[in-house]
């Protein structure tokens, strides 16, 4: 089985937000929830870089560790998923997540956040594949169809890579060698405790 990862090549991201839009459309994500977002660092200054970020599907995921009801699980492809039937909307995963991935349908005063929602690596949830229940709770299950996450597939500059960690790391390394520079795989050290030498 593959070890699924995301890699955003910050030297290619043009902040077009197509990944964000693709994700929202594919999974019918409600208003206010952003499974993926683009963050621009040093906006308008020399050296500005944009990074598209969603759940990184961490190794030894912090969200899963702090969840009081143990609603997270890791698939055979190392995708971190959670059960909305078990989630109590406490918000702890958001405090632990290094990437701000967990989202909630409501602001959450008086503990009324609702069930947490996050990027599923287009792998659905614990419900049976292709069911209406799975789609309504977690969005489409492209992985079950043999496809990779739509955000990366839609990326206009192929900045965002999704797939087996070793393969996308290899693609990135080749890119860095060819063009002569690269600002590294953002978040990999925090998520997977490894970096790609550039």
């Amino acid at each position, binding site marked *: 089985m593959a070890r699924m990862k995301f890699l955003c090549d910050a030297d290619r991201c043009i902040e077009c937000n197509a990944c964000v839009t693709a994700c929202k459309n594919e999974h019918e994500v409600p208003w206010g929830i952003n499974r993926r977002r683009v963050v621009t660092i040093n906006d308008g200054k020399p050296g500005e870089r944009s990074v598209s970020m969603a759940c990184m599907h961490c190794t030894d995921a912090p969200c899963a560790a702090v969840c009081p009801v143990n609603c997270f699980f890791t698939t055979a492809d190392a995708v971190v998923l959670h059960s909305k039937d078990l989630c109590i909307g406490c918000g702890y995963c958001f405090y632990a997540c290094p990437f*701000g991935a967990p989202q909630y349908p409501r602001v959450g005063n008086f503990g009324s956040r609702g069930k947490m929602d996050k990027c599923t690596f287009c792998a659905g949830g614990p419900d049976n594949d292709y069911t209406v229940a799975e789609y309504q709770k977690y969005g489409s299950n492209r992985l079950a169809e043999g496809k990779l996450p739509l955000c990366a597939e839609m990326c206009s500059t192929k900045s965002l890579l999704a797939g087996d960690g070793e393969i996308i790391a290899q693609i990135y390394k080749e890119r860095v060698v060819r063009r002569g520079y690269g600002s590294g795989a953002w978040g990999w050290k925090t998520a997977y405790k490894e970096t790609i030498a550039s």
Partner: protein
Amino acid sequence: MSTLKRTMQTFAGALILLLVVAFAMPATAQVRNPDGSVNPTASAVQEGQLLQELQRIQGRVSIPDKKEGVLIQPAGQNWRHFHEVTLRWIGGIAILGMLVVLIAFYLIRGMVRLKSGRSGRTIVRFNAVERFVHWMTATCFIILALTGLNITFGRPLLLPLMSPEAFTTWSEAAKYAHNFVSFPFTIGVVLIFLMWVGGNIPNRVDVEWVKRGGGIVGDDHPPAYRFNAGQKMIYWIVVLGGSAAAISGYLLMFPFYGDLTVNGMQTAQMVHSIVAVLFVAAMLAHIYIGTIGMEGAFEAMGTGEVDVNWAREHHALWLEEEQGRLAGTAPAARATPAE
């Protein structure tokens, strides 16, 4: 004079400008590679460097949820360690340690008996309003403590005993109970503060009481007014601990209120949970001494009236005050013979 000063200033300004330009020159040169081609990453932001400088990487997002501008916050890992390891140790040691101490103390010391037995005559210690406030706060506290401990200790201790669905149902109900019971609890803490603050200001009698071991160790009964030093300690734990738990708790209940960041929320949770587990440990001692730890103590909050001998042994100065007051104000009512 002033002309000279201005000239000097102008000169100094020009010098600084020159220096700045001189230092900036190499940086500008670096934008180009040695062969003259443009180096596009010369001033690019680097993840490792940003994390070292700022502990978190933040930028601009085009979505309304501005807190999503935080790209990477490794502090989440520290909070995770706190929640999974540190807090469980603090809570475990504080609560289990207190239980062990209390059981050991009970086995060694036993119940503190009334030395002179019961006199059969009683005196009002807490009126109906005081008792209502006490029990309202106490009930809320027990609910808050159990539902709160469930968040930290439920997964390792309770979840293995039931189905995940049942545990979720209980935990979700517990979460709402925790949030809404906090309101009467907070009101209770405020009322406790106002009701008893007069008798709980530390004074010289307390020093003497503490020096003589408060009658907890040994058979001594140092005099005390309405509240002895130990009770004053419990009072201030309730008032200060209750306030800290309430403030940090409301910050958690209204997430990201104002300018609170994710790191602010983590801090609020840490303060809330540490105060809470220590609070629980302190209240275990309070429950012990008010029930099986001391003969005649529970009546004070139960019926509101204590035996006069109990009052003489534990709160001699208060009894004197009270008897003096009663004798002065309502002698007729008190003098009525019982038989």
